[in-house]
């Protein structure tokens, strides 16, 4: 059984505009019927441009957003329906690491307090030892050197390791990594990426890895889901999806990744306004292969290979001309 099973996850943000909020709301569908599953000790990468809904998916999985529909099954139990003790236990078992280590640590708390706080919330004992242990796991040693420091006294990489230590201290099973290395220098980034790999081997963690960087996804993940404007356009094993992409959007993303060696497919225009998503296939206004039928309805997810899914009408109709 998979650790996390997400079915038809939909996230809506009511958009209030000034005083009109008294009377009506407009709705922004940030995540639209997204499904995926994350096996135990596995890593699933959610890939896409900013604003595609990948971070909202991460927060929704943790049950931190309102206006969420669908199911988020953690070990078979729906997170969105959890309450009280059950929810608290889930909060212990699932943790999150954010992108910006300058924003994710409370500036008024010392490292010790930051890392220790989850223990107090969940009434675990053995404070100082556990804190030191977590800091060392996150690669901060000697831990005593860091305990009494404020976040602003640390470097970006060290801050991110503090955030990781705070996430690890409760011995979680699932970590949501929301662009955890995007704000770091390349040299530090490599260290943190390796740390994630080692931690997975040592502690048996599962990662939901949110990133816009295909190289990072390739390095860390077993499976990948590519998102565009709130929907998943392609899902499958990382090696398969990233070596022979089938959706035109994935293809375009891959072609512009540095060192891909492919001819760059530069997409026309910008990502459409998510408040007014285009009808039919979300990608058709920018798709180099779009046909008139593409504007009619959202293509279903079709299985194009062993556990390889994509949402493209052309594939459904078997019209892919460049298939070999």
């Amino acid at each position, binding site marked *: 059984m998979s650790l996390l099973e997400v079915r038809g996850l939909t996230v809506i943000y009511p958009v209030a505009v000034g*005083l009109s*909020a008294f009377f009506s709301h407009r709705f922004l569908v940030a995540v639209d019927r997204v499904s995926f599953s994350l096996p135990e000790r596995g890593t699933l990468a959610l890939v896409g441009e900013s604003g595609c809904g990948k971070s909202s998916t991460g927060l929704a999985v943790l049950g931190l957003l309102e206006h969420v529909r669908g199911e988020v099954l953690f070990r078979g139990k729906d997170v969105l329906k959890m309450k009280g003790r059950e929810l608290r236990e889930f*909060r212990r078992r*699932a943790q999150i690491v954010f*992108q*910006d280590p300058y924003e994710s640590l*409370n500036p008024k708390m010392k490292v010790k307090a930051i890392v220790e706080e989850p223990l107090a919330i969940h009434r675990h004992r053995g404070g100082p030892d556990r804190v030191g242990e977590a800091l060392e796991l996150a690669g901060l040693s000697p831990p005593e050197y860091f305990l009494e420091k404020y976040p602003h006294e640390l470097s970006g990489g060290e801050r991110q390791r503090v*955030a990781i230590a705070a996430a690890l201290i409760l011995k979680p099973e699932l970590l949501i990594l929301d662009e955890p290395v995007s704000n770091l220098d390349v040299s530090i980034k490599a260290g943190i990426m390796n740390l994630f790999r080692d931690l997975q081997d040592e502690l048996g963690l599962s990662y939901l890895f949110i990133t816009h960087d295909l190289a990072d996804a390739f390095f860390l993940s077993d499976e990948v889901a590519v998102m565009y404007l709130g929907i998943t356009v392609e899902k499958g094993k990382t090696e398969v999806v990233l070596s022979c992409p089938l959706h035109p959007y994935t293809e375009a993303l891959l072609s512009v990744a540095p060192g891909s060696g492919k001819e760059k497919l530069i997409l026309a225009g910008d990502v459409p306004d998510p408040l007014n998503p285009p009808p039919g296939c979300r990608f058709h206004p920018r798709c180099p292969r779009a046909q008139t039928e593409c504007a009619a309805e959202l293509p279903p997810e079709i299985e194009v290979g062993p556990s390889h899914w994509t949402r493209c009408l052309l594939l459904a109709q078997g019209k892919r001309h460049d298939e070999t």
Partner: protein
Amino acid sequence: MGGIGKYIVQRVLLTIPMLFILLTAVFLMLRLMPGDPVLAMLGGRNVSPELIEQRRKEWGLDKPLGTQYANYFWRILHGDFGRSSRTGKPVIKELFTRLPATLELAIWGIFFASLFGISTGIWAAVRADRATDHAIRIFHIGSFAIPIFWLGLILQMIFAVQLDWLPVAKRVSGIYAYTFSPITRFYLLDAIILRDGKLLLDVIRHLILPAVTLGIALTGFLGRMTRAAMLEVLDTDYITTARSKGLKERVVVLKHALRNALIPIVTVLGLQFAILMGGAVLTETVFSWPGVAGFLVRSLDARDWNAIQGTIVFIGIFITTVNLFVDILYSIIDPRVRY
């Protein structure tokens, strides 16, 4: 921490040119103001020119402006603010007897402003963009826009005249004017020292209306500030992290968010002190509160130059000191600030 000592010295030195400019501006403005202090003092009509001349000489007003300015400066440097032409007593003594009344009013004004402003600001931020938020924001703008003297009069009319729950004006009831001899002149404190329960109740009843009036005047600004600061903090990742760790929402808001949001709020509170003194002038006038600000208004009426100069300089020094204090406090509550 040698840094902070150096910073304090720098800040204190910086206040010197500030006070210099203040003193000069007050001096020149008074000389430009219509009305002659000697005539105002002597009543204006049927005064012999000889008497006027004599008074002018006594007060040094016959000398050239430059000499007057130098004399004025010299005296103030020695802590001599001159005598009030209206009461005949040294200005500095008048100020010190009135200062506790103003401070007592100001402290409770800030107390009510913080109570109303910070709590409604937090509430508005937590319920951002919903009906509660809009209602609170309208209240904030309203309280910011209402003229203090009008609010004071309305509160007097409702709570003192119509409902007769609270006294209209002054710091204590008439009977105490003869029986009560103040010690610190902070009446609340005096009543506690004297262990006089009836007096304490009387003092509190007198304090409520003026303090609430002054407090409401500051509530809007403080509330909007709190809302903005809270919204900014509530949107940060460490708040989401705190929630994801299973912390109760109340603890997230009050411990993680408010403590960080308080940093800009405290700064603004310090700057608001100047506005508070302005508000105190109006409040003291409406409620016949025997404070420094009321003294200033009466001195202005009487063209009492020494008193006006003295009071403004005094308030200026006071505000400067408060701001200095706030800046130092700032470095204590925000661990990131280093000098």
